[in-house]
């Protein structure tokens, strides 16, 4: 399938350290896949193996069913954003893109278009050494888009971007996926990507801990109610009799295993006035940290 990214039993060992251990996942066209893990979990090493920059100790890294090194015209198939914006500090943004455009077979018009597209039109003739981190990230995105590739691989692209920049990047990547492109994006913050990704791969200590659509990750946490009433003891025992798991949450009770309707009816049944009854949305960041921290 065009645009498919596949990591198959990918491992990388440095001396005695197994940085990446038997990592398997796919990123499909038309979807944004979040590759999540804490710092040092093996995300960057995995992405570098996918891009042919690091040789796997074992396993296979494929893009469009081929190792990266075997891709004809790779810049027209894969765009990558790595290491918080790579450029020579003594070169202007325009010259940097033009040098890469020669390699990608893209023209000057494409360079000018991309500089405007990423919001660097005004700084095109400044040397990149004077760019802010956010500007360097925007230049890196423009570099990745030079060959108009179907596959985008981005390693922590949000680093250095302000909220406006992050919103811009989110829209750009969503649009890319809507057009049928494949996006694989890494981050150590799930909350940062929650509004962007369709699928999630969680890696910890070099091993994949979770692979699923994002919605399924939400579903791993049972819905929790927060109930505050006049007589917490009576409510507690009534809820437990109904089969719920109850714990204290400050002045209120945390109830798992009941719907809000059931909880309301039970409280009414035992004649305890209820002052508050809310449904806690699943704490996605906590789910991620639980998975990423598991070792």
């Amino acid at each position: 399938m065009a645009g498919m990214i596949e990591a198959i039993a990918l491992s990388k060992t440095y001396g005695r350290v197994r940085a990446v251990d038997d990592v398997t996942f796919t990123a499909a066209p038309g979807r944004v896949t979040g590759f999540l893990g804490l710092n040092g979990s093996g995300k960057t090493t995995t992405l570098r193996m996918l891009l042919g920059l690091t040789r796997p100790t074992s396993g296979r890294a494929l893009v469009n069913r081929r190792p990266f090194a075997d891709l004809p015209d790779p810049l027209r198939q894969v765009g990558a954003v790595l290491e918080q914006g790579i450029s020579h500090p003594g070169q202007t943004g325009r010259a940097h893109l033009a040098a890469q455009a020669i390699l990608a077979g893209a023209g000057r018009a494409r360079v000018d278009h991309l500089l405007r597209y990423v919001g660097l039109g005004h700084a095109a003739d400044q040397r990149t050494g004077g760019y802010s981190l956010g500007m360097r990230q925007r230049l890196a995105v423009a570099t990745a888009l030079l060959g108009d590739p179907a596959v985008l691989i981005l390693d922590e692209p949000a680093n250095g971007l302000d909220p406006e920049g992050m919103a811009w990047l989110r829209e750009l990547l969503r649009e890319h996926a809507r057009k049928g492109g494949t996006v694989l994006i890494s981050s150590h913050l799930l909350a940062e990507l929650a509004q962007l990704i369709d699928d999630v791969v969680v890696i910890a200590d070099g091993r994949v801990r979770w692979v699923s659509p994002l919605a399924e990750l939400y579903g791993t946490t049972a819905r929790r109610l927060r109930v505050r009433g006049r007589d917490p003891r009576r409510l507690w025992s009534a809820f437990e009799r109904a089969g719920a798991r109850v714990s204290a949450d400050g002045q209120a009770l945390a109830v798992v295993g009941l719907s809000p309707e059931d909880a309301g009816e039970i409280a009414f049944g035992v004649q305890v006035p209820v002052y508050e009854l809310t449904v806690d949305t699943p704490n996605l960041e906590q789910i991620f940290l639980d998975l990423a921290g598991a070792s």
Partner: protein
Amino acid sequence: MIALVRSELYRVVTIRSSLFSLVVLGGLGLLIGWFNMDAWELLAGIGAFGLGVMQVAQHHQHRTAVLLHLARPRRLTVLAGQLVTTVLVAVGFAVLSGVSVLGRGEVTQFRDTLTVVPLMAVFGAANAAVLRRPTWVFLGWTGWFLFVEGLLGRLTAPLPFSAFLAAGAGDRQSLLVLACWTGLAVVGAVVAVRRDLTGD
């Protein structure tokens, strides 16, 4: 390969420090060549070596080697492109800076130097492909030149820089020795270029 060479040449002229170095070295060569041909020969050869080192090592220093390898994943193609670019830049530099030598009618020394310059450029670039850090290359070879070739070898041993000095003066045997050292460095680069590109 042609696109790679074009891109590398474009980088040379659009990176301010690279262009500045070329202009300063070229101007210095023109001036020196008018007064002392041997000094020009030394400048052209060592300049070619330095340009070769910087051509390759800058990519590692500023991480742009990553972009190069994303565009051309075949490592040997990248190495070949860089060596060709280095030769073009070094020969261009030597020709332009040697105009004053030609003006004095010293065609033989000009020709001998132009024979040595590509070898020195490739030698420098290949060393940089192995070590990846310009400081290590420059400091390493400076120490080697002073202590091994200078003090121990008295600049007559069949070693790279001694061979360069003699070959520039027209010694064919030394040219062969320098070519062998350059070939050895290229073999090292061919092996080393396959290493992983590490992160920050």
